[in-house]
């Protein structure tokens, strides 16, 4: 085996505290590399303060590009496109799926698919260890490709340095960026909150992980704002075959730590929430070793 284990932290819905929890894991875990694949709204760097060592431009998703000299304005492209992404005058780069059908139907061969600048891929060093992350060009397509590149960069580091763990900050939702963040991993950890939308969105992400055969665990954050729903969250998690790792209390010190841009286990190590996070990490470490 390559020797390293991979854990992705997801949430289904945003705002459950995933990045705060993960920042604390980064402070607690030894021998690991961090990958921030939440490229659309990358926040982990705010907590971990990476020093960028290398930057690589990432040219990812393709979109259709027209050569106006060859175009005869016949409109075949407009008729063929199923995504309303092209007219004789214009190409809507947000709607364009990069399928290439227009390039095939154009009688003048005036259209080609070209990769678009999607973002920048960074390999960095932090006081907690190496980190791979990315910045998406606002407006760019957030397909799974950039996520996959960030993960590859992290895994290359894990192999090079003989590290034990890759900890991945995953995107919200259940679409192609999430599935790229959980492909081939050892464990998906869902950090959720005890609310109806927290439970609903957790269930969808657990179903998604299950579809791809990924083992899951769940942490209920801000659990004390609704104990009954925290119980319900863990019950629903168990129904989906996910293991409940623990509950974290709501504590304003977590937000103070974010404002101080420091992982809470460093900012307030004696707080109840820091102790709970530390216990959770210890259990997760054991669980990863056994997977």
């Amino acid at each position: 085996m390559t020797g390293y284990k991979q854990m992705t932290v997801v949430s289904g819905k945003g705002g459950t505290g995933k990045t705060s929890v993960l920042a604390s894991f980064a402070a607690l875990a030894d021998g690991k590399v961090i990958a921030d694949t939440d490229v659309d709204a990358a926040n982990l760097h705010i907590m971990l303060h990476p020093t960028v060592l290398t930057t690589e431009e990432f040219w990812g998703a393709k979109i259709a590009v027209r050569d106006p000299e060859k175009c005869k304005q016949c409109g075949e492209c407009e008729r063929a496109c199923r995504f309303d992404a092209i007219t004789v005058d214009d190409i809507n780069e947000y709607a364009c799926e990069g399928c290439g059908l227009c390039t095939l139907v154009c009688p003048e061969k005036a259209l080609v698919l070209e990769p678009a600048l999607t973002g920048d891929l960074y390999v960095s060093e932090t006081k907690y260890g190496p980190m791979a992350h990315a910045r998406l060009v606002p407006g760019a397509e957030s397909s799974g490709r950039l996520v996959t590149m960030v993960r590859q960069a992290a895994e290359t580091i894990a192999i090079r340095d003989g590290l034990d763990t890759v900890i991945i900050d995953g995107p919200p939702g259940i679409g192609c960026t999430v599935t790229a963040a959980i492909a081939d991993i050892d464990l998906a950890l869902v950090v959720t909150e005890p609310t109806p939308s927290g439970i609903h969105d957790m269930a969808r992400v657990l179903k998604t992980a299950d579809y791809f055969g990924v083992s899951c665990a769940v942490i209920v954050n801000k659990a004390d704002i609704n104990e009954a729903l925290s119980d319900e969250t863990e019950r629903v998690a168990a129904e989906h075959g996910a293991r409940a790792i623990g509950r974290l209390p709501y504590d304003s010190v977590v937000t103070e730590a974010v404002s101080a841009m420091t992982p809470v286990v460093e900012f307030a190590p004696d707080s109840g929430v820091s102790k709970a996070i530390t216990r959770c990490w210890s259990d997760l470490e054991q669980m990863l070793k056994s997977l």
Partner: protein
Amino acid sequence: MPSVAANSPAPLTISVAAGKGGTGKTLVSTSLAIELAYEYPDKVALLDGDVEEPNADLLMPTVFEDSQPVHILVPEVDAEACIHCGKCAEACQASAIAKIRDVVVTFHELCTGCGACAYVCPVDAIAEVPRKVGRIDRGIAAGSVEFTQGRSEIAQQHTGSVTSALKAHIKSGKVSIVDAPPGTSCPMQETIEDSDYCILVTEPTPFGLNDLKAAVETCRTLSVPHGVVINRDGIGDRAVEDYCKTEGISVLLKIPHERRIAEAYSRGETLVLAFPEWRGPLGQVFDAIVEEVAQ
């Protein structure tokens, strides 16, 4: 009152987005829709555009009346007619159809439904058949809001068709509030791009500010007028407000951080349903938007 007719609101399409998830976007969109529906019954629609994780219906009493599947067309290969030329696999950008030695294999959940493979097949061996990728559910929320929700199928990679199907339900003549998915890339852009105004909901923390900047850049790129609602005001710092002031972006509303609001949310009650005193301020947000759009 800057509205079109005596009891009709200006029929704007207002999207509600946030760079960062979990800032309170759905709290704001549902509350705004409900408040406007009190003032203008039957003239307000709410659409949930977060098709991967739709949960606006969990914050209001919602009665669903109708469900329509969303389909894309995916390839089915007639193995007998196939001449194994491989042109379909070459044309496919999504790896949804492949030629492995002499066999053509399809992978429907990777398919975007573009039709390129069927188009290039020289012997018409590819039929296109419908595949359900999601559904559109319609109903009434909080008694008077016309509610439409898009929901993608689990493991469906390309959800753009579900978003497009949802947007087809935006009716002119009504105020449409469209709840966007989190983030600033394609799914969020598709939701906000044709709207008259975008409300960006954020929290006053370094995370909130970081993602707000990306969301603002996206609004500017798409030329969508925008303003900010600061939720959980008081938990962090003034940096978001200062940023808005410097950039000339209006702060439409500030919702303070109150445990009782979080608890109501966790019971499935949106802001104006739990605390009706917020109706007035949300009505004023709409008026401010109407005025900004009119300029």
